[in-house]
């Protein structure tokens, strides 16, 4: 065998622990790298990806079955690149059911596949016989219903949920078999089209013109362009992309740092050995080769294993994180694996090369005496100062240790800082998200929603035999009845009106509030709640999408009335197309309208059943809605993904600390043996080594938390920007002093967890062995 191989192989075998550490670290780093790159790639354009996989519809059109025949539709669809349908489409109002699902658009489809809108069934199965229904739900999302749930609505056939599927284009809220659709009294025929060119609104319009040419003009009941869907998806879910991206970047940096630390440390730790090799006649190049080969053996193995592990485990994690975007079957692009499989060995080689080049130049005599030479002045001054303090000796010795190897300590510190930063950021985003969620959709179990009748100009789809809600009392009587019930603490009366905002392309809805708006209305962020006619407050997204600002006046038009309203404030809501006005404005746009619903807040401890019974006896025409589910499933998915990613990055950071302690303990084993020989207990040795890293943990915490807070501000701002709204205080200022202190402690946790095992190992090492081998 060639002497380089021989010496390298011998070194690998003699330093089993170091070899294992390099292997494990490179393995973990490769897996993290694959995951980070995969995350970056997957979060780059999740909607487009999902749309491409599903062959999403560029345009969905609902036709009036009275005006066109199925044959006409099929014929006209020949002008599209691909089409699916016609599918029978029915509208089902679930407000009379046990669970409020809103108004469901149900399509009759025999098959989830096809040339357009290949709906993916991610749980359960497709509906194959009457009485079965499949709900459109984002993969991974959890709701109150599961497979097997029965949706029974008075006067309707009962439907059993047999599966959950997802359509990126949102072609329907639920699917049943075509026969079942017929029984649901369909009101429309759904057609789905793909066009050769559909990148712009004009192209989609041209496509629509082509597929409706020759059909009666009034046959089109409604259309949905993929551009609208994408807009909505990217402003709602796209909010999370900056967050996922930053995790990808953090993973990348942590992986690079830790490998640099471990590999260069291995070479530095071998300086004595290098001197020996030179002394017996190895040329400088051979010495360098020995070291490169020595670290390459475990590094290449670790890289191979890590890349595989990253594809297996990392993919699961990324999949969970991006599932909310409708990416069902994630596969990492080939470049991800190529970069990881080739990039990692290159990284290892360059991390080894720097100290190996130094080793190559080092005179043999200096190399042999390495480790016993005098240390730098600063390290000595610090240790002297520490010696004079009142700290227990193992602690002061430990505190001085990082200064003896500043390069290594700096790299270790950097990985702790990144770990702390990740935790801080993840905690912050979680808190921001919770704050947002609480603000826009209160879960409050103390609220009761009551329907008094249909909102203005929007007839509720009713079925024969089911009474629509119709209040028996007048609006004023209802309100005072509710206020007089025991347990009522606040009442908000609401009605709404669809309007056109002049200059805007999309419709908006004006919501009128009366009563306890401060307690039950949306939160006012800037400006003030309308206090007279002609004033509205809007969500910031409404302003940003239309280029408006507070103080501007807009013209709204509804039911033939047209009026000017002034924007007097910004409110926090989830819906960009809602504007809010005071009741006084109702009289301008819809004189004499009554409240269509009431929202009541009950005093703590009020019995819901008894209260709703009292409401019903007060006005039997009011319908009590079942309580709403307040949690956002997307938020849950993102928060749990953040948790997993944080744990992974925290563990990798701790691994960096682990490695540093292994190297330090190895270099200092003679010192440690001596300390034990003069009576240092194993526990004191452990304290010494753990303290040396604990110090880095404290500093890492102090540096990492502010950086994490700063990055959080950037990420939240980017998230708000992606959501076309403004970053507001309740989302930005989420860190309280106690939370910050706790987060700073994570630095110590990472350091101590990483240090404990090797420190205890070093403390238990037999002194006789150490002294014998020196």
């Amino acid at each position, binding site marked *: 065998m060639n002497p380089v191989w021989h010496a390298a192989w011998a070194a690998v075998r003699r330093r089993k622990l170091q070899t294992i550490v390099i292997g494990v670290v490179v393995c973990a780093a490769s897996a993290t790298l694959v995951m980070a790159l995969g995350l970056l790639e997957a979060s780059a354009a999740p909607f487009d990806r999902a749309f491409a996989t599903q062959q999403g519809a560029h345009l969905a059109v609902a036709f009036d079955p009275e005006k066109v025949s199925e044959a006409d539709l099929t014929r006209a669809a020949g002008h599209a690149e691909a089409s699916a349908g016609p599918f029978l489409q029915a509208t089902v109002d679930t407000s009379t059911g046990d669970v409020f699902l809103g108004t469901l658009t149900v399509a009759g489809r025999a098959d989830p596949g096809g040339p357009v809108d290949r709906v993916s069934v991610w749980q359960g199965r497709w509906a194959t016989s009457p009485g079965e229904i499949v709900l459109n739900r984002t993969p991974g999302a959890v709701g109150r219903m599961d497979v097997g749930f029965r949706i029974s609505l008075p006067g309707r056939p009962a439907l059993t949920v047999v599966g959950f599927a997802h359509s990126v284009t949102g072609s329907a809220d639920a699917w049943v078999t075509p026969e079942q659709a017929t029984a649901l009294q369909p009101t429309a025929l759904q057609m789905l089209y793909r066009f050769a060119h559909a990148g712009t609104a004009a192209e989609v319009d041209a496509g629509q013109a082509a597929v409706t040419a020759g059909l009666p003009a009034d046959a089109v009941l409604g259309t949905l362009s993929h551009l609208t869907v994408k807009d909505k998806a990217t402003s709602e879910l796209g909010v999370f992309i900056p967050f996922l991206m930053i995790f990808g970047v953090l993973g990348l940096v942590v992986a690079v740092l830790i490998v640099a630390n471990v590999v260069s440390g291995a070479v530095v730790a071998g300086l004595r050995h290098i001197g020996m090799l030179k002394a017996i006649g190895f040329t400088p190049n051979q010495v360098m080769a020995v070291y490169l080969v020595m670290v390459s053996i475990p590094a290449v193995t670790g890289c191979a294993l890590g890349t595989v592990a990253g594809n297996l485990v990392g993919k699961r994690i990324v999949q969970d994180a991006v599932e909310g975007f409708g990416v069902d079957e994630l596969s990492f692009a080939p470049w991800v694996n190529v970069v990881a499989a080739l990039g990692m060995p290159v990284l290892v080689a360059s991390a080894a090369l720097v100290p190996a080049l130094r080793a190559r130049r080092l005179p043999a005599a200096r190399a042999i005496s390495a480790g*016993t*030479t*005098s*240390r730098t002045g600063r*390290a*000595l001054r610090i*240790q*002297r100062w520490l*010696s*004079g*303090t*009142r700290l*227990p*000796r*193992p602690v002061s*010795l430990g505190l*001085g240790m990082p200064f*003896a190897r500043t390069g290594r300590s700096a790299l270790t510190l950097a990985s702790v800082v990144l770990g702390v930063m990740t935790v801080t950021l993840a905690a912050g985003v979680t808190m921001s998200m919770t704050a947002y969620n609480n603000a826009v959709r209160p879960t409050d179990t103390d609220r009761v929603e009551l329907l008094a009748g249909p909102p203005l100009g929007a007839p509720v789809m009713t079925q024969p035999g089911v009474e629509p809600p119709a209040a028996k009392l007048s609006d004023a009587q209802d309100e005072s009845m509710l206020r007089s019930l025991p347990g009522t603490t606040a009442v908000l009366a609401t009605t709404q009106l669809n309007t056109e905002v002049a200059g805007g392309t999309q419709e908006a809805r004006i919501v009128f509030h009366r009563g306890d708006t401060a307690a039950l209305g949306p939160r006012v962020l800037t400006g003030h709640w309308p206090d007279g006619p002609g004033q509205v407050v809007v969500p910031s997204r409404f302003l940003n999408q239309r280029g408006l600002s507070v103080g501007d006046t807009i013209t709204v038009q509804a039911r033939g009335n047209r009026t000017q309203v002034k924007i007097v404030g910004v409110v926090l809501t989830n819906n960009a197309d809602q504007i809010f006005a005071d009741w006084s404005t109702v009289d301008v746009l819809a004189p004499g309208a009554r409240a269509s619903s009431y929202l009541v807040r009950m005093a703590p401890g009020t019995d819901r059943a008894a209260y709703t019974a009292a409401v019903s006896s007060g006005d039997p025409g009011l319908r009590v809605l079942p309580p709403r589910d307040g949690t956002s499933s997307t938020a849950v998915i993102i928060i749990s993904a953040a948790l997993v990613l944080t744990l992974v990055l925290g563990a990798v950071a701790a691994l960096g600390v682990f490695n540093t302690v292994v190297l330090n303990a190895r270099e200092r084993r*003679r*010192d440690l*043996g*001596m*300390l*034990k*020989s*003069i*009576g*240092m*207990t*194993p*526990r*004191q040795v452990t304290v010494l080594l753990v303290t040396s890293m604990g110090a880095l943990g404290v500093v890492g915490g102090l540096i990492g938390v502010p950086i994490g807070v700063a990055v959080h501000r950037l990420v939240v701002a980017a998230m708000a920007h992606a959501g076309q709204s403004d970053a507001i205080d309740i989302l930005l200022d989420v860190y309280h002093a106690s939370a910050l202190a706790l987060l700073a402690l994570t630095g110590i946790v990472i350091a101590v967890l990483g240090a404990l095992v090797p420190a205890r190992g070093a403390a*238990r090492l*037999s*002194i*006789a062995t150490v*002294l*014998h081998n*020196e």
Partner: protein
Amino acid sequence: MQNGDAVVEMTNVRKEYSDSIALDGLSLTVRAGEAVAVMGPSGSGKSTLLNMIAGLDRPTSGSVVVHGSDLGVLDETGLALFRRRGIGMIFQFFNLLDDLSALDNVALAAQLTGTASGQARKRALELFGELGITHRKNVYPAQLSGGERQRVAVARALMNRPALLLADEPTGALDSRSGEQVMDLLLDLNQIGQTLLLVTHDERLATRCATRLIEVVDGRIAREHSMERA
């Protein structure tokens, strides 16, 4: 402790390593006030013998009793506490901490027992005075000569006034002049009552300062003589 009381009692001590037998049923008694010199070829088990007495390693079989306590029943922490108070050790290669000054290296031994650093330094300074190295107290090991380093190591070993001083080839890394000075130092210590067990290769030095000389070959005591010191 009275002169003549047994400080060390080793009975039938056997120590095997994976590929060698370091001690092969060795028995030895050291009494208070003695200065025992251990000689023998390299690899014969001398260092192992010292390690057994210091509790740095455990015998495969046999018992080691030092100052009346059976080391076999102590756990690692117990052994460490025992060493702090009962044993001072000096090594061939000094084993000083490179990043502590000479004075701090010595004070360290007392600080481990919980002595305040001011008091520890005071005691260390006294020892520096006695050993004639006061002027080197703020110097780091790398700048000290071999002889000076070994004096610092001796001072450290004496810090906690141990009843037993163990020295493993304390002059092995020194030139003959410094070696002699260190030996003189140990002799002086013994003359004021310090019990001493030292391993050395130098027969001349051994005969000069030991009250008893034992020779270890293949892990057993091959020869033993008591003597009058020159």
